[in-house]
């Protein structure tokens, strides 16, 4: 070991610093010599190269893939049309040019506003559209006046169109102009080159999630250009490869049937094929016209959509969270059987309320006076609350959470589009983490009938219903059934994605399923919707509370502000013996599941299984004459 001598060390350090200075100066000199070589010695050579640098490489934009429903109905398509475009760098005075152009081509203030916004966001030498879809007269008049407008050109462009607009807007989504955020994302994925020339990118829905399939591969053209950058001659060409077409599992006819059955009401419906998780219908009401977003939406329409009290941009099926209400009971009942807390033979007397031992507070049943003697079968058929209050108390919240979690409630289902929300299936650990509070026995009681902290999306409920219908198979819900290669025309099937299988005893499942069938038969809460069905139809009604009803108060629909009324819910599948379709319906602010949500399910089944088109909103199915209370 040597002890270092400080001053000598410092001396050494400074010598090394001096050497660094020499090193830096030497390397900078090398750079300088290189600059001198390029800029003085070789200047003529490179200037000539820059002058004749007329081989520019232009991107050829691929056609975007089309989107079809399962029967080949077009949901997203392309059309080509002529657009009037301006390259700002070549136009000295934009305002006056626009004024002059307006003399023979209609340019609305909205067009103008949109163009100005576009100009601010883009490079000066990029050609930007001022008007799309020129008609033939406009094209002809411009052609004769073209010499007056350097930098203004008519270009043939391909546009996207969604022919079914609001009917499938929450499924298909839309494309819109590429913005800075999209560019960052593309750069991160090293896809910027493939988008040199592309103006649009999928922003939401299938257009977003399947962007990679739909976009295609950009081709390139080597072009000889003049000094101003205009192309004179094409030297070589690599053709673009169109994006792949998507064939959805969605049945557009069914989608339309749902739309009709809903009429003007708000809500959501998700229908799945329980044999593979294919999404047959996916509706969130109201929808919106997704065509508005393609060219960049204008302020007026945006404000209208964004500020509407009906919230049409909100995808209720995917992102709306609601307490599941009594649709939660079948899952509770199965938990009771599987975990040995109840037998099918067990029955209890229902006085119309439940109280925790030693507590005065009464948890009321929706039916004053109760349902008399109730066993598990009857508890589902008449939707008895008291039975589940006491069951919840026996199970405890964590058993409920763990068992019902198998049905995918409170979790993302893994659907093949982005932005799904997870909802909430509460547990004591969750409450401690989230609210720093312990779980109270009373919390369990309201959770047991699907209220309290429970929050599920219509998609999750459909997923859970599918698992009852198919005996525990958790298929990831998916929109896209096949991908068609645009070049070869070959279609590739996307195989079903079985996430896991929950092991339930068949005899326990049988008990639940039998009860659900009786729900739609006389005496059941959905008897009216099930009347005269030509197939067996299993379901469960529910009501999702929007506002809390105070102790001692009764829910009176007529006295409550319309937007604060309960949401009607219904989960169902059919035919019960070999299910082909499983669904969840939510109708906002219309009260009970049996009266408004179940009839929609009936119409959907009639269409899907029998081919009956629903009549426009049927008033006889939508009456309010029966005594309905708020939680069945």
């Amino acid at each position: 070991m040597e002890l270092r001598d400080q001053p000598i060390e410092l001396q050494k350090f400074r010598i090394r610093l001096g050497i660094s200075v020499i090193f830096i100066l030497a390397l900078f000199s090398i750079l300088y010599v290189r600059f001198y070589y390029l800029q003085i010695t070789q200047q003529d050579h490179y200037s000539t190269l820059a002058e004749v640098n007329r081989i520019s490489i232009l991107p050829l934009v691929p056609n975007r893939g089309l989107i079809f429903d399962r029967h080949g109905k077009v949901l997203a398509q392309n059309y080509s049309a002529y657009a009037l475009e301006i390259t700002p760098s070549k136009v000295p005075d934009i305002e006056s040019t626009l004024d002059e152009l307006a003399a023979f081509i209609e340019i609305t203030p909205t067009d103008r506003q949109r163009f100005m916004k576009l100009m601010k966001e883009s490079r000066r030498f990029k050609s930007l559209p001022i008007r799309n879809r020129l008609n033939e007269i406009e094209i002809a008049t411009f052609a004769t006046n073209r010499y007056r407008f350097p930098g203004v050109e008519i270009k043939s462009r391909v546009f996207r169109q969604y022919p079914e607009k609001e009917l499938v807007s929450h499924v298909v989504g839309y494309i819109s102009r590429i913005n800075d955020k999209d560019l960052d994302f593309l750069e991160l994925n090293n896809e910027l080159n493939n988008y040199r020339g592309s103006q649009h990118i999928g922003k939401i829905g299938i257009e977003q999630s399947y962007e990679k399939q739909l976009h295609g591969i950009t081709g390139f053209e080597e072009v000889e250009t003049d000094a101003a950058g205009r192309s004179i001659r094409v030297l070589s060409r690599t053709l673009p490869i169109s994006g792949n077409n998507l064939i959805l599992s969605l049945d557009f006819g069914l989608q339309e049937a749902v739309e009709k059955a809903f009429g003007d009401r708000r809500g959501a419906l998700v229908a799945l094929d329980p044999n593979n998780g294919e999404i047959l219908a996916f509706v969130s009401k109201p929808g919106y016209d997704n065509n508005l977003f393609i060219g960049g939406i204008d302020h007026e329409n945006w404000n209208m959509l964004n500020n509407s009290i009906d919230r049409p941009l909100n995808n209720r099926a995917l992102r709306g969270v609601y307490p599941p209400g009594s649709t939660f009971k079948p899952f509770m009942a199965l938990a009771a059987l599987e975990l040995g807390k109840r037998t099918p033979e067990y029955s209890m007397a229902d006085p119309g309320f439940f109280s925790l031992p030693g507590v005065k507070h009464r948890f009321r049943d929706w039916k004053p006076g109760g349902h008399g003697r109730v066993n598990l079968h009857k508890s589902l058929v008449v939707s008895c609350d008291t039975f589940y209050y006491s069951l919840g108390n026996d199970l405890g919240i964590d058993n409920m959470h763990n068992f019902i979690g198998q049905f995918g409630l409170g979790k993302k289902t893994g659907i093949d589009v982005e932005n799904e929300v997870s909802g909430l299936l509460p547990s004591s650990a969750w409450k401690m983490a989230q609210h720093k509070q312990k779980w109270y026995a009373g919390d369990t009681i309201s959770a047991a009938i699907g209220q309290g902290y429970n929050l599920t999306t219509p998609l999750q409920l459909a997923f859970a219903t599918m698992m009852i219908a198919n005996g525990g198979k958790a298929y990831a819900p998916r929109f896209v059934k096949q991908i068609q290669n645009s070049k070869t025309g070959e279609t590739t099937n996307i195989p079903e994605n079985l996430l896991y299988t929950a092991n339930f005893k068949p005899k326990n499942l049988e008990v639940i399923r039998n009860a659900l069938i009786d729900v739609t038969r006389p005496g059941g809460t959905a008897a009216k919707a099930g009347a005269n069905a030509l197939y067996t139809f299993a379901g469960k009604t529910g009501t999702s509370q929007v506002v809390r009803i105070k102790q001692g108060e009764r829910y009176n629909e007529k006295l409550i502000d319309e937007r604060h009324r309960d949401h009607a819910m219904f989960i169902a599948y059919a035919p019960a013996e070999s299910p082909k379709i499983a669904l969840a319906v939510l109708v906002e602010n219309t009260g009970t599941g049996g009266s408004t949500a179940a009839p929609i399910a009936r119409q959907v089944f009639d269409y899907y299984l029998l081919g009956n088109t629903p009549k426009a909103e049927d008033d006889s199915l939508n009456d309010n004459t029966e005594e309905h209370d708020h939680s069945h």
Partner: protein
Amino acid sequence: MNSRKLTQNKIDIRKIWYYFTRHIDGFLLTFILVLMSVGLMVLYSASGGNIGKVNNQAINIVVALILMWVIANTSMQQIKRIALPIYLVGLALLIGVALFGEIYNGARRWLNIGITRIQPSELMKIAIPLMMAWYFDKYEITLRFRDYIGATLLLTIPVLLILKQPDLGTALLIAASGFYVLFFAGLSWRIIIGLIVLGAASLPILWGMMHDYQRQRVMTLLDPTQDPLGAGYHIIQSSIAIGSGGIAGKGWQNGTQTQLDFLPEQSTDFIFAVFSEEFGLIGNTLLLLLYLIIIGRCIVITANASSQFSRLIAGSITLTFFTYIFVNMGMVSGILPVVGVPLPLISYGGTSMVTMLIGFGILMSIHTHPKFIRT
């Protein structure tokens, strides 16, 4: 009374100003700001008059300056205390990237930490010199050969992890910053020369280990015309841009290579070609001088640093700053292979701006905090 109050106010403002600026090196800051302004001007031209991009960069600059101010106001004793934790966090994140990192462009560089994605190798650019300087400072009195081995290990492990991502450019630059610490800590000349010889001898082996795209870059450097539409395109177009700029350049916003979009990545790694095309050799001379002035100031600060820790860290930051400039200009002018290295203080992008200014913040802290004298 009124006038007394006035003078009172005056003194207060002066006092506040004093406290606000006492750890800022005015000379260094002035030239940094000059370079940044040049950068914004070039960016405006490079982005084709897109003011949005200039605004974004201005925000990056403000954030970076605030961070610089905070670091400058932190004493070296405090910085020394966080050297080890920062290094360990950086190393843990790098291991995290290797295990759970997200893959973009075939490279595993990003780690998703819930709220945002981070690139831990960026943190290591500061953490490694800090850690190694801390290490040498700790063993300063009893420095033995095996301490150099220890320090080399501190450097090698993260460099190998970054190399494996793969990110050759960043790995080399971080290796260089660590090597500079070793160099200033007194690594024997015999070993340095030995390393250079060994390095030269192992080039063929390195060549064998390189990824195809890396080999491609080297081959392209030797003969860009071999691949004019692929990797050679960058070099050909940037050489044309620089060469056609001539003595005085084509003028701001008049570079045809830039404005007609022949030049790739013109606002980030290749922004120097835009500058060269539009301002010519005169512009290049002034730009090199500006960089030299900043480097010169950094050297003065390094030479006057009082502790071993400060000296090593200052020396490494200075030489690393120089290395960035040299590698970037070298690659854009076609004498070095294309590796993704931004031009300090000029290229578009927030991360490198922040890293650079944290470095300058450390230098300012070294220079303006009272120097304790060893007895």
